[in-house]
């Protein structure tokens, strides 16, 4: 096993999907079965990335494997120094795990889509788009530098755009695609500005090189403020991509795309890229940046959870739960629970992909019915879908023995410790409230969809369990939602291989005076809980809040589930009665806090207004001056022309006229008679004599 082999395999994993895309998109129109090539590529990619995971974890668990090449080399530039833009690959444990998650879910979604998309007129193109998505997403995963991150960041944006608007005949779908791309670009501008600051300061895009220089004390413009700002700007990319408040509005609309796409891109992988980015830049976050991140995450998870409570579209509930869970992960980065942020990313990817594919299975069998008010009782018709959906719901609700319990508990403990250490108690409060709400709305969804009596009997009659190709992915994903894949101890993830061996929180590199006190290294010190990376105080606090957090989350999760059963299963309380009592709140939640309406009235209307004003200004003023000056010159030349014609030429003509006139008068003298001439001569001679008197 050597490093160059791993690099070659990584390159294969990265570029195979691109080959799949190119082939499928070019031949899709002619070869009917072109999609099989794409599915085949996707399976090879999966196998290779499993190997990559195994090889990295078994042979190089402590070592990062690096590979880079010079992409654009300017050599030495005046006023700048060396400018050599490199791209490259960085394989650490996070990378290979993430690559495995992406390729596995991508493969399962390919399989699922073979059935789900059957009969679509752009069948091959759909698979091609999946290929370019997988390529771009893997690019984000493997890159060792922030420019590469940005490049692939935009490319996933493109594939997301293409797939959301896949059924472009629907206006809502093409609107949603456009909205997703543009809203993401707002975040990307911030990220781009952050990258500019980093590159200007460090003259490199490479993460490791930036962090090295940073730990040596070099920070942008030598100021903590700029360091914080840079962190926040780059984090803006994550706000866009991971659908964080205030840019979360695109994700629920993105559900216009085919459901397997929602599972792959808008639940499991692409939207988690923001979390992945935050994890990558974790070491360069100052205390202020982290606080901003924690607050954004908390607000997002809270808002999204409150909205999810009242939605009736099965995919919308799941979409808001995704936003809420992403908020969790972002919050985890903000409170310093680095490892749990990534852990939750992985567990969430599996159970959320399972939930989305499960919802796809339901929608497929209900003939594109998405309203849970028209469902019910499907448990009997679709037992396998039901069981896998239930397992994933237990996981997202944080019930013991599931993966979600482990990762969520870690985040909750992290927020609690953060509250205790910094006094920002609102963050743990939000986090625990969300845990309660999540358990409630997810079970509301399960009960309304699968339990009770069917509410649309006609559709229920036609419902059936989905074909094998759709069910197998569900089973695989629900199995991965169990604890056993991550740790042998179902209540404490810390002892599992995932966290104790693979994922370790790195020490930060920002100057100590701009870090949270509890993140200042006291590396190497031993405590009762093993070797620690951060301060003793932090480790102690985390340990002390572990059990309180665990019990609190169990109680709240259980309570949420109980309330859901009381209302929807046992019908002890009529939900309509409650909503009637809190009508304004209910409407507020149902209408998604009116955030879309607010943006429509302000930003969108504002932009359109400015653009119309610009266009008006352009035609009437800027061009008006041009045409106006042309008019003025024309008028002036008309005046000059008149002057020329009547005054100047008039004078000329007058002279001519005068001579003519005189000529006519004098002509009479020329009679042609000799006598007249003699008289004229004599008279003239006399006049001359009189005047000149020569004698």
């Amino acid at each position, binding site marked *: 096993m050597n490093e160059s082999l791993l690099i070659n395999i990584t390159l294969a994993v990265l570029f195979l999907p691109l080959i799949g895309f190119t082939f499928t998109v070019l031949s899709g*129109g002619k070869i009917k079965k072109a999609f099989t090539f794409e599915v085949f590529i996707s399976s090879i990619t999966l196998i290779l990335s499993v190997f990559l995971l195994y090889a990295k974890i078994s042979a190089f668990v402590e070592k990062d494997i690096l590979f880079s090449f010079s*992409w*654009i*080399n*300017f*050599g030495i*530039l*005046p*006023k*700048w120094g060396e*400018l050599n833009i490199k791209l490259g690959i960085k394989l650490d444990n996070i990378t290979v795990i993430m690559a495995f998650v992406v390729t596995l879910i991508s493969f399962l979604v390919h399989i699922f889509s073979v059935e789900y998309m059957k009969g679509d007129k752009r069948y091959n193109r759909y698979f091609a788009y999946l290929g370019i998505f997988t390529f771009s997403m893997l690019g984000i995963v493997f890159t060792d530098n922030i*420019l590469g991150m*940005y*490049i*692939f960041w*935009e*490319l996933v944006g*493109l594939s997301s*755009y293409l797939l959301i*608007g896949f059924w*472009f*005949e629907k*206006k809502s779908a*093409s*609107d949603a695609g*456009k909205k997703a*791309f*543009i809203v993401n*670009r*707002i975040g*990307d*501008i911030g990220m*781009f*500005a952050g990258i*500019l*600051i980093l*590159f*200007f300061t460090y003259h490199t895009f490479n993460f490791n090189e930036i962090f090295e220089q940073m730990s040596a004390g070099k920070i942008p413009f030598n100021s903590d403020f700029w360091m914080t700002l840079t962190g926040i700007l780059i984090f803006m990319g994550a706000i866009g991509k991971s659908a964080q408040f205030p840019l979360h509005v695109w994700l629920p609309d993105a559900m216009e795309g085919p459901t397997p796409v929602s599972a792959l891109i808008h639940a499991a992988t692409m939207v988690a890229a923001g979390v992945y980015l935050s994890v990558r830049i974790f070491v360069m976050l100052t205390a202020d940046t982290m606080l901003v991140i924690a607050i954004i995450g908390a607000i997002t998870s809270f808002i999204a959870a409150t909205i999810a409570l009242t939605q009736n579209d099965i995919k919308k509930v799941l979409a808001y739960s995704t936003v809420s869970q992403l908020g969790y992960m972002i919050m985890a980065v903000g409170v310093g629970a680095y490892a749990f942020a990534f852990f939750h990313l992985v567990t969430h990817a599996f159970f959320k992909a399972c939930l989305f594919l499960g919802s796809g299975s339901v929608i497929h069998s209900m003939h594109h019915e998405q309203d849970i008010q028209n469902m019910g009782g499907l448990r009997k018709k679709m037992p396998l879908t039901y069981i896998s959906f239930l397992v994933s719901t237990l996981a997202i609700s944080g019930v013991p023995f599931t993966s979600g319990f482990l990762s969520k508990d870690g985040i909750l403990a992290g927020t609690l410790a953060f509250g205790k250490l910094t006094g920002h108690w609102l963050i743990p409060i939000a986090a625990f409230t969300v845990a309660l709400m999540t358990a409630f709305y997810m079970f509301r969804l399960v009960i309304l969809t699968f339990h009770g009596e069917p509410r649309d009997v006609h559709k229920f009659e036609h419902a059936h369990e989905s074909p094998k190709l759709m069910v197998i992915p569900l089973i695989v994903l629900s199995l991965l939602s169990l604890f056993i894949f991550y740790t042998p101890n179902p209540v404490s993830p810390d002892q599992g291989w995932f966290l104790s061996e693979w994922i370790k929180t790195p020490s930060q590199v920002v100057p100590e005076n701009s870090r949270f006190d509890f993140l200042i290294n006291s590396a190497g010190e031993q405590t009762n809980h093993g070797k620690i990376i951060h301060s003793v105080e932090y480790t102690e606090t985390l340990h002390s809040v572990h059990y309180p957090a665990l019990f609190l989350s169990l109680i709240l999760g259980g309570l949420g589930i109980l309330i859901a059963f009381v209302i929807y299963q046992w019908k002890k309380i009529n939900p309509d009665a409650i909503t009637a009592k809190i009508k304004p709140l209910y409407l507020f939640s149902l209408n998604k806090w009116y955030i879309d309406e607010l943006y429509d009235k302000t930003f969108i209307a504002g*932009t*359109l207004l*400015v*653009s*119309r004003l*610009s*266009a008006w200004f*352009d035609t009437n003023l*800027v*061009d008006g*001056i*041009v045409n106006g000056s*042309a008019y003025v010159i024309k008028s002036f030349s008309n005046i000059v022309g008149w002057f020329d014609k009547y005054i100047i030429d008039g004078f000329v003509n007058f002279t001519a006229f005068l001579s003519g006139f005189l000529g006519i008068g004098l002509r009479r003298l020329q009679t042609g008679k000799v006598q007249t001439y003699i008289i004229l001569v004599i008279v003239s001679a006399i006049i001359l004599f009189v005047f000149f008197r020569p004698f």
Partner: protein
Amino acid sequence: MVNIPYLSLITFLPVLGMILLLFIPKNKPEAVKILSLLVTVIQLIIAAFLTMNFDYSAGGVFEQSSFQFLEKFRWIQLTGISWLGNLKIDYFLGVDGISMPMVLLTAIVSLIATISSWTIAKHIKGYFAMLLLLNTGMMGVFVSLDMFLFYIFWELMLLPMYFLIGIWGGPRKEYAAIKFFIYTLFGSVFILIVMIGLYFSVQETIGNTKVFTFNILEMMNQSNYTADGILSPLNPYNLRFAAYIALFVGFAIKIPMFPFHTWLPDAHVEAPTPISVILAGVLLKMGTYGILRISFPIFPEITIQLSWYIALFGMINILYGAFCALAQKDFKKLIAYSSVSHMGYVLLGMASLSSAGITGAIFQMFNHGTITSMLFLIVGVIYDRAHTRGLDDFGGLASQMPVYTGFVTVAFFAAIGLPGMSGFISEALVFIGAFSNDTTRITAIISTLGILFGAGYMLWALQRIFFGKLNEKWSSLTDLTAREYIMLIPLSIIIIFLGIYPSAMLGMMNTSVNSLVNFITETSNIITAGL
């Protein structure tokens, strides 16, 4: 080895073709087309040959010896005409890393435009004659190193362009043609005045005598300035600042820079497709090229002094162009305003006076040439079929013309600056450069908003034309023809290739740009120290 005058060949081949063309009888339009095509193909072959033999390590810019494919001889010499003294004009051609990409671009765009002209039906002979003449003018501007010669080529383009718009244009062609003509001529007058001013301020040493000169490179050499020349830095009452502004306005009209841009939408809307392609693809680059070739190195101290304003106008172009594009209802006008926006990046990059920024600017000139050519071809495709360009007249074309839609997607995302396409690299370099200079940093930050609005108008247009239910009116539209493939495929390949492997072109500019940047700093220091 015989020195083959490659640059003269590439410049005057079209005129030669034009003369031959006049002998072709009127009833053989195909022969006219094929001859024009042949000329542009040979031109592209020469350009490719030049590119391959181009020495990446030669700087050019201010140093005659490091220019490549040099041709220089005395063209006009009149001795002792009264107060003029010795009038001397050189036929002086050469390329460096700044002009080489433009020569290549001109050859590519001319070929594409010739293919695109195949459907011209009216006065075919006259049309192609004008097209070839225009071609010579464009090429000449990019290879001239004598300002008089530069000016002649500059003016030479006006005439064919005027007729090409005025005769083969759309409904308001007369208005558009005359507006284009007068506006550009207005700018040319400024260039002419500055050129004469420079002539009387710069003396080249030939043998032992000093003679006035139009040689651009000699104008950059500070030791050539006379003590009392009107544009000489040695003259305490010099008019260099005013001259810079005048020259800049002359070039800015061509870019076109706000507020001198309003001729562009009119000219584009009225011009036939191939002429739009040339106009956007090559002609707009002449303004920024002129600034880089003439304004920057001849007036370096004023360039530095005014760089903030140049960046400011770049920023205005980017944002204002984008906003105007957002409000358009005509497809072609939208693309025209997007040109205004994209040329703003060129200004911003140049204003940074940094290597990254100027490289980005030149690369952006090239990329805008290819991307916008593609966009105008795309407009042409739909206009040929539907005879309308209203963005709201269409809808759902993606299902009717899937291949066409594929090319449109490539071109639109290239214009948006999607990574993997050439436009991304040039915009990123412009931003890196502009951010690295204290003077232009703020404008760079604000200009990033252009990335957002660019996506806005492009995607909105894409949606209005191609998505949604197919408008039944258009259910008979056919997808691309072979001729359209021939134009769109090479452009797509160039755009994607340079997006993945930009070094292919960046390497060509690198040395020259560095020497330009150094030259500006050093010469400006010399001038300011001398004051």
